[in-house]
């Protein structure tokens, strides 16, 4: 699904990603771990198409197309979803209005008519149930006055509604208490199919107890320095990043 080859990127002449290679297939869950400043968030931003980053070498192929040639919204239409580490407030725009706009734009790009309001509401209700979201939430303004946990849950709710092929969850576990973490992780697990894939970006092993990855990669100084199975995360937890980075 996603093939990243020798990806180099930076911001204002500071190189952050120094040659990333990563292949993600349908049905897989990959965890990318690493210490602060290793380039985890940059990687997710570059895949999503944030303009601040200048991409040098390398290629990102998504379902046979060059992702780097596309606008961020086009990438979204093709099925790339980023759950933001710090979700953005959009004052005055309700969650339901935002998601409706988002879904309508995606469907338009795919040549589909907008979902009838009745079906849209039904879908929203189902997905809310999935994430234990209370009534009244839909009419709140996007992330305005949301707690940390609510913001993250809102991200996963949007993911559930947009049904992306590739989801990148950037530090979705940060700022969540254990109950919220369980709910979010449960949601993510329920949304897993053999046709979609997930990249989890995280500091800690904690999230991986709830969402079990097929592969774990360690990112350090802009490069993936070690890859392994889920047991790698446990090893990291036990020994710390120094164990690898100082090798």
């Amino acid at each position, binding site marked *: 699904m996603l093939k990243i080859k020798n990806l180099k990127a930076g911001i204002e002449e500071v190189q952050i990603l120094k040659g990333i290679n990563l292949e993600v297939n349908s049905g897989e869950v990959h965890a990318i771990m690493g210490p602060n400043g290793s380039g985890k968030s940059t990687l997710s931003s570059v895949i999503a*198409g*944030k303009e*601040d980053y*200048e991409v040098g070498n390398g290629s990102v192929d998504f379902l046979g197309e060059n992702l780097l040639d596309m*606008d961020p919204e086009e990438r979204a239409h093709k099925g790339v979803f980023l759950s933001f580490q710090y979700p*953005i407030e*959009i004052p*005055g725009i309700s969650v339901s209005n*935002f998601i409706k706009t988002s879904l309508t734009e995606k469907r338009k790009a795919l040549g589909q008519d907008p979902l009838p309001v009745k079906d849209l509401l039904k879908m929203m209700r189902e997905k809310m149930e999935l994430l234990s979201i209370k009534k009244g939430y839909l009419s709140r303004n996007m992330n305005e006055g949301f707690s940390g946990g609510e913001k993250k849950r809102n991200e996963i709710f949007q993911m559930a509604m947009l049904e992306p092929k590739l989801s990148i969850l950037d530090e979705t576990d940060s700022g969540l208490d254990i109950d919220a973490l369980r709910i979010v992780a449960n949601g993510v697990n329920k949304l897993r199919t053999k046709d979609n894939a997930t990249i989890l970006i995280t500091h800690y092993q904690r999230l991986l107890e709830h969402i079990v990855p097929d592969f774990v990669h360690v990112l350090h100084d802009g490069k993936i320095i070690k890859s392994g199975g889920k047991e790698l995360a446990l090893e990291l937890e036990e020994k710390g990043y120094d164990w690898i980075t100082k090798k």
Partner: protein
Amino acid sequence: MSDIKKQTEDELLEEVTTSEYKYGFTTDIESDTIPKGLSEDVVRTISSKKNEPEWMLEYRLNAYNAWLEMKEPDWANVSYEKPNYQDVIYYSAPKQKPVLDSLDDLDPEMKKTFDKLGISLEEQKRLANVAVDIVMDSVSVATSFKETLAEKGIIFCSISDAIQEHPELVKKYLGTVVPVRDNFFSALNSAVFSDGSFCYIPKGVQCPMELSTYFRINEAGTGQFERTLLIADEGSQVSYLEGCTAPMRDENQLHAAVVELIALDNADIKYSTVQNWYPGDKDGNGGVFNFVTKRGVCHKNAKISWTQVETGSAVTWKYPSCILKGDNSIGEFFSVAVTNNKQQADTGTKMVHLGKNTKSTIIAKGISAGYSDGNYRGLVRIAKGATNSRNFSQCDSLLMGDKCGSHTFPYIEVKNNSSQVEHEATTSKIGEDQIFYCNQRGIGTEEAIALIVNGYCKDVLNQLPMEFAVEAQKLLEISLEGSVG
């Protein structure tokens, strides 16, 4: 800032200038027009063409003489070449049968015009709850739903008709809220006003529908001097909508309207405006000068609420105001003012608290894009006797790009120490982060801006009646199209 960002902003500015006015066309209708210029003779001609009684002529001549001694104000934070008042045509009426039996009798050309505006009469009729009094170049050409209103004793007609048929009401109230000598433009309007709307809601009557007027400037070089007089008698209630679009013109067109609202004891008036007159081209050529005096007076327990969405005009000079004369009266002002390209706006409100326990609320949202300049100017005055009065003001500005400007001039005068005045102001830019977030959710930049702007204006748009709010939203999108690349 990265090169990429800089590049985007350059593109942004490039695109701003390509956003052209969408309603630029003229209707080919024969007009009955008098020569350019203003003199006592012209005032007399207007009055006689309209077959006005002597007292009306005297009112006009008195205003004309006052105007001669007055100077055009220049304290507003706008710069423009002052119009040559001898180069303006002061009267123009479409040559039409004076009275239409039904809307179907409307000139087909005129009908087309309304269709282009997307507010076809059919649509209006289907909205059922809306009575439309269409003013095209100064004279009312169609008035509908009159009978339904008449059953309730409501008078909704052109001001010309009101002068003929209800002289006692016009005489009693005209010029009581905005006196002839109030300002340069109100004096001019009082001398030459061609037409406008008149509305009277009898005691205790709730107007069963929104009263709506669509204004449109049509004749090249024709000044528009609309006069509106709205009286809500004791305990009555009315919601009035005013919407405007004008065709594209090369020379500046002058518009100096006067609107007077009278809310008697316990009455409630809601006055909503959507204004998108031709703003001029991207270089600031042409466009409408909108110099408007709007003011209402509230008697005991009365309420006046102004809502405006202003996206048009080259230069706007407009301060819908409330005189809170009666005890416990309430004044409200909700405004969205958008400027793009080289538009200039100096707009705001005045809340004058005279009665005890009077309350006022001001929510003003400015949006500036391109090379434009948006100014909020507001006065809150609390008189000595206005004990326990309260005001809350919130003025927000949203900037798009780095070539536009936004200023806030709040004046506060409090002469009473039991009163409370609050003022909040914010200035923000549409964040790259917000746009990227929307982009990531599949929402393109144009739509993202429309969405963010709508959210920003929500408090004001919510004040508008439903179908008007939808139109206003569309208008905001049109006016800001291409303003961010």
